[in-house]
C-alpha cells in the first residue's frame, strides 16, 4: 500500500506539449510512472515522444480521462492558466469517475485564482488536489514506481517512511536522510509553499496513519501561517506512528517573504520557534538541523521497537 497514488497509477500530464511538461513527462516515464498521455487545448490528436515512444494528446481533460481511465493528472501549465487547468481536471474526474488526484506543480499562480480553484475542488468530494507550487507526490516501487512531479526519482527507494513537506529540496533532503539509515519511503508528498493550497498536513498525516505500509512519518514545515501547529495538535490526538519533524526559517526576519509566497512571519505569528514548540508539545521528535533527521528518525524507530 501507499497513500493516494499506487505504484501503477495511470497518470495524465496537463501542458504535456510545453517545454516543462514534456521534459518532466519524459523523466516520469524514465522512472517508470505509468504515463497514459496528456492534455493541451488546441493540440488534441498530436502525439509527443517520451523515452522513444509516442504518447497521445487530447484537447480536453474529459476526452483524456474518457480514453484512458486515468487515476491522476499532473499540471505544468503556466500560472495565468493553471487554476483553470485544476478546475478542468476536477470537473472531468468528478463527472467521469467521481474521483481523481490532481497534482499542480506550477509556481506563481495568483492567490485569488487559487481561492476559487480550491473551493471548486472542495465542492467535489472525490477529488484531491496536491499543490500548487510543489514538487509533487511519489510512491517508489520495487522497480520504478509512480513519480508524479519534478523530484529526482533515483534518490528514492520503496520502504516504510512517509514524508510530507511544504518544501521541495527539503523533501529530497529528508529522503536522503531516510536512505542514510537504510530506510525507504512509502509515499513522499510536497504540499507546496503557497498560502492557499489543496491537501494539507493533517490529511497527509491521517492517510499515513491509515496506511499499513507506512510505519513512521517525517513532517517538514516552514515559517508562515499555522498549519504546522494545527497538524501537531491533531497528530497528538490521532497519530500512533512515530513522527519526526523539522521547521525551516528559524533565522528568517519578520515581514520578509522567504522565496515561497506563504513563507512570511506576519504580526509576529508563524515563527519557526512557535512551530517547533507545537511539535514538541505533540510528542513529535524534532531535528534542529535537517542533516540530523536520519539520526532522530533512527532513535524514534528504536524507541518503538521498529529497529
Amino acid at each position, binding site marked *: 500500500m501507499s497513500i493516494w497514488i499506487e505504484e501503477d497509477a495511470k497518470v495524465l500530464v496537463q501542458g504535456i506539449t510545453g517545454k516543462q511538461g514534456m521534459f518532466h513527462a519524459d523523466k516520469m516515464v524514465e522512472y517508470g510512472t505509468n504515463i497514459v498521455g496528456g492534455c493541451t487545448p488546441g493540440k488534441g490528436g498530436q502525439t509527443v515522444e517520451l523515452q522513444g515512444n509516442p504518447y497521445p494528446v487530447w484537447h480536453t481533460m474529459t476526452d483524456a480521462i474518457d480514453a484512458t481511465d486515468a487515476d491522476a493528472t499532473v499540471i505544468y501549465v503556466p500560472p495565468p492558466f493553471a487554476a483553470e487547468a485544476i478546475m478542468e481536471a476536477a470537473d472531468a474526474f468528478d463527472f467521469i469517475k467521481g474521483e481523481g488526484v490532481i497534482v499542480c506543480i506550477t509556481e506563481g499562480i495568483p492567490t485569488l485564482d487559487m481561492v476559487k480553484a480550491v473551493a471548486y475542488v472542495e465542492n467535489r468530494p472525490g477529488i484531491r488536489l496536491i499543490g500548487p507550487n510543489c514538487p509533487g507526490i511519489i510512491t517508489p516501487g520495487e522497480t520504478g514506481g509512480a513519480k508524479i512531479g519534478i523530484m529526482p526519482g533515483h534518490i528514492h527507494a520503496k520502504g516504510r517512511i512517509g514524508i510530507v513537506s511544504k518544501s521541495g529540496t527539503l523533501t529530497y533532503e529528508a529522503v536522503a536522510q531516510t536512505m542514510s539509515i537504510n530506510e525507504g519511503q512509502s509515499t513522499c508528498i510536497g504540499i507546496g509553499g503557497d498560502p492557499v493550497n489543496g491537501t494539507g498536513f493533517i490529511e497527509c498525516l491521517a492517510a499515513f496513519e491509515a496506511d499499513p505500509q507506512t510505519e513512521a512519518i517525517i513532517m517538514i514545515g516552514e515559517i508562515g501561517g499555522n498549519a504546522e501547529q494545527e497538524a501537531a495538535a491533531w497528530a497528538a490526538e490521532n497519530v500512533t506512528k512515530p513522527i519526526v519533524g523539522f521547521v525551516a526559517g528559524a*533565522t528568517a526576519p519578520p515581514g520578509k517573504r522567504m522565496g515561497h509566497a506563504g513563507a512570511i512571519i506576519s504580526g509576529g505569528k508563524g515563527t519557526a520557534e512557535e512551530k517547533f514548540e507545537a511539535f514538541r508539545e505533540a510528542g513529535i521528535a524534532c531535528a534542529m538541523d535537517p*542533516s540530523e533527521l536520519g539520526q532522530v528518525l533512527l532513535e524514534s524507530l528504536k524507541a518503538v521497537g521498529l529497529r
Partner: protein
Amino acid sequence: MNIHEYQGKTLLRENNVTVLEGVHCTNVEQALAAYDSLGSKVVAVKSQIHAGGRGKGTLYHPETREHVMDGGVKIAFSREEVETYATNILGNVLVTIQTGDEGKLVSNLYIEAGCDIAHEYYLALLVDRDTKSVLIMASTEGGMDIEDVAHNTPELIHKVVVDPNAGLLGFQKRDLGMALGLSGAALKSFGKMLSSMYTMFVAEDCVMVEINPLVKTGADEIVALDSKISFDENAEFRHKKWDELRDLSEEEDVEIRAKETGLSYVKLDGNIGCLVNGAGLAMATMDVIKLYGGEPANFLDVGGGANEEQVKTAFSIIMEDPNVKGILVNIFGGIMRCDIIARGVIAATEALSLKVPLVVRLAGTNVDEGKKILAASTLNIHAADDLAEGAQKIVALIGGGQ
C-alpha cells in the same frame, strides 16, 4: 507589493469607496498650494512610506540623525503649520515601529482635508490561509494597533468569511455593520462601502486592504480615512498599471535585481553568504549556520533550474554585501545537475576572483561528477558531504561567529 496611502486612496475613489479630498505632494510649495486648493481650515499632513505606525513615528535628519519632529502624521490648523510640518517631514527619515532603526526617507506627502469624525472603526480584507477564502475583519476599536486589540479583547473583532462562489452577501454586510453598532443611514453607507471594497479587492488582486481608521462622520457617512493596500505579486501579469504604482525606492535595489534574473534574495545582517536551491532548503541552510555559531548574510534561492550565468549572478549579488566573509553553497540536485553547478561555481569564483573562503555541499543528481570537478580545481574550495558539515566548515574558516 505595497502601495502608498495616496495611491490607495485614488484606487478606492475609482472603486466608489468614499475618501476625503486630498493632494499628493513632493515639495513644500505643492503642500501649500494643496492647502489653498482644498479649502479646508484643518488638514492632515501625512508622510507617505510603506510602513505602519507613521503617526507615532519620529522624524530625524537623514545624515546627522538629529531629532526633527515627533509624529509622521500631523493635523495642521493653518497655512503656517502646513509649511512647518511639510518642511519637517520631506527629505527627512521617519522611524516607526515597523521600519526598524534605520527608518525610511520620506519623499512623498499627502495633504488631506479635515473631517467631522463621530466614531473610528477598523476594517481589513485579507486572504485567509485557514479558510482559504477572503476574510473581512472589523472592529469598533478603530485607530488602535489591531494586534493589541486581537490579543487583549478578541471579542471586539468581528469576522465574515466570503464564499468565493457566492461572493459577499447582503446579510454578511448587515451582520458586520450591526456588530459595529451601526444602524440607519450609517449601516446603509457601510454596506455600500463594503460591497465596493470587496469588488475592488478581487478585481485588483489584493492580498490585503487595511483601513484604520474607517470613520463614521457626523452626517452618518462611512469614510476611509487611511488605506494600506498590498497586491499579489503573482497576479502582476494581468495588472500593467502596477508598474506605475511601484515605488522602487521602497524596495531593496539588490533584491529587485536578483528577482529580474530569476533569483530570490533577501539581505540579512550576518557574514556568511548562502547560495542554495529551493526556498525551504535556503531557509534551513541559514538556520543551520546559526545553529553552529555563525550568522547568515542572506537568503538566496537560485531556483530549480539555474544555469551557469545565474550562479555567477548569485555570487556577485552575495559579494556586493561588504559584510560577507565566507560563502556556503548548498545544492541538492534534482533537475539541477551537480556537475553543472560545480562548473558554474568554478567559473564564477574565477570570473569574480573570489577571495573569501568557499564551502560547497553537493548532493543528488550527478553528485560524484560534481565533486570530482571541484576536487580537480586549484581554487580554494572546500567540499562538504552534508549541511551540518558545510555549516561547521564555513563557520570555522571565517574564525567563528561574528
